[in-house]
């Protein structure tokens, strides 16, 4: 049984908790997100950890499952766009022209299927490779590719409709 020492656990938590929180947010959690983050790390610290080569897939699958479970238990049914709105300070959105497309982006994220949002979260917040995303979502590589492609197409379209213009 491979167990981590307290300081190694603390370091692991400090390193990964921010991205776990962001992944869970994009899965649709809001008020309950910190409970879910805590639940993820308690499971990690109690688990018999898999080998290093399988660890990342195992860890991110744990996060996705925690998000899905919490989502099912969620009492409020506010839409994702509305919940994400609460994360963005209003003054910053007003100050940055680039943030003008954010409401459209939130709506587009809200419109994505959960599996697509998960793929986006794992790619952008955890910087996982295609193979790791496939392992975490337990789907073939091609499925991940089509999910990311579809999601990016929707998000790009949302930004374009909101007036985003490329710099290049």
């Amino acid at each position, binding site marked *: 049984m491979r167990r981590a020492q307290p300081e190694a*656990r*603390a370091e692991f938590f400090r*390193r990964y908790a921010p991205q776990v929180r962001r992944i869970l947010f994009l899965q649709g959690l809001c008020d309950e997100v910190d409970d879910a983050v805590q639940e993820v790390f308690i499971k990690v610290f109690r688990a018999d950890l898999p080998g290093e080569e399988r660890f990342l897939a195992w860890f991110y699958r744990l996060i996705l499952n925690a998000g899905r479970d919490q989502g099912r238990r969620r009492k409020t049914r506010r839409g994702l766009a509305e919940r994400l709105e609460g994360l963005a*300070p209003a003054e910053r959105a007003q100050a940055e022209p680039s943030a003008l497309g954010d409401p459209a982006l939130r709506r587009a994220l809200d419109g994505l299927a959960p599996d697509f949002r998960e793929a986006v979260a794992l790619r952008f917040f955890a910087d996982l490779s295609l193979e790791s995303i496939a392992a975490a979502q337990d789907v073939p590589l091609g499925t991940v590719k089509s999910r990311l492609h579809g999601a990016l197409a929707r*998000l790009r379209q949302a930004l374009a409709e909101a007036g985003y213009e490329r710099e*290049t």
Partner: protein
Amino acid sequence: MGEHDDMKPELETFDDDRLLAYALGLDDDPGLEAAAEADAALNARLAAMRADVGAVGAGLDRVVPAPPDEYTDLSGTRWGELREFVAAPAPAAPRRRPMWLRVLVPAAAIALVLVAGVVGLQRLGTVGGNEAATVADDEKTVESYGRQSGGTGTAEDAGAPSLDATIPDPTAYETVVVARAQLPFGGRQRFEVLRVLRGEAGTEVSLAMVDRALAPDTLAILYLRPTGHANDAPSAPSPASTATPLVVAGKVVRYTFKGEPALARRLPADTDLETITLP
């Protein structure tokens, strides 16, 4: 005729899927890179795809911002249920030691620190003539990601920078390269690879930022694909477990590369690339 057929270039298709995978940093694609250099239209499509991906990434950073540094403060009430896992065992009550021990032990510790310092300095010298200069230079030139990208806001800037007083052990990484940092954007930073010191690498790598980025045009040694296997998992994927702390050391900025921890250690701008050698 046969000879003519042999000379006919192989036709490759560069559809949006392929461009997107490359722009997302999912696939290394030397064929696409080479074709884009020779084909202005393809190069423009690739640039547009990168811009779109960057805009989406920047939008995601705004819409789902990273929490402030205080978020991971384990002493907060928010993480009460985690405390039992991360608290070090309480030390045993100290016993009164004899006077000679109380004098001798601190003296021995000071001597050890001095010896370790000398060894650390000697090791620094083997990594290249310019290494020592990075220690003094690091603090003033590492820029915060928030300021560079105009993206994730001030919360990430509020805390201490994610710098380690360590020199990574290059043998703990499959790939070590010297590279030049590009402008960070959308939570990612690209590096132009100038020299491969260990392993294999393309002409460019894209790293995801943890909370800081190097200033554009900064020279750095990148440590990619950790090979170390700490017994102490779950810290196994953490670069902290694959780095070798030294008494005197440069400082590094943490990134991730394809889901694994990666480190960038800044070099002075006038570094002669040819003088850099790994121990």
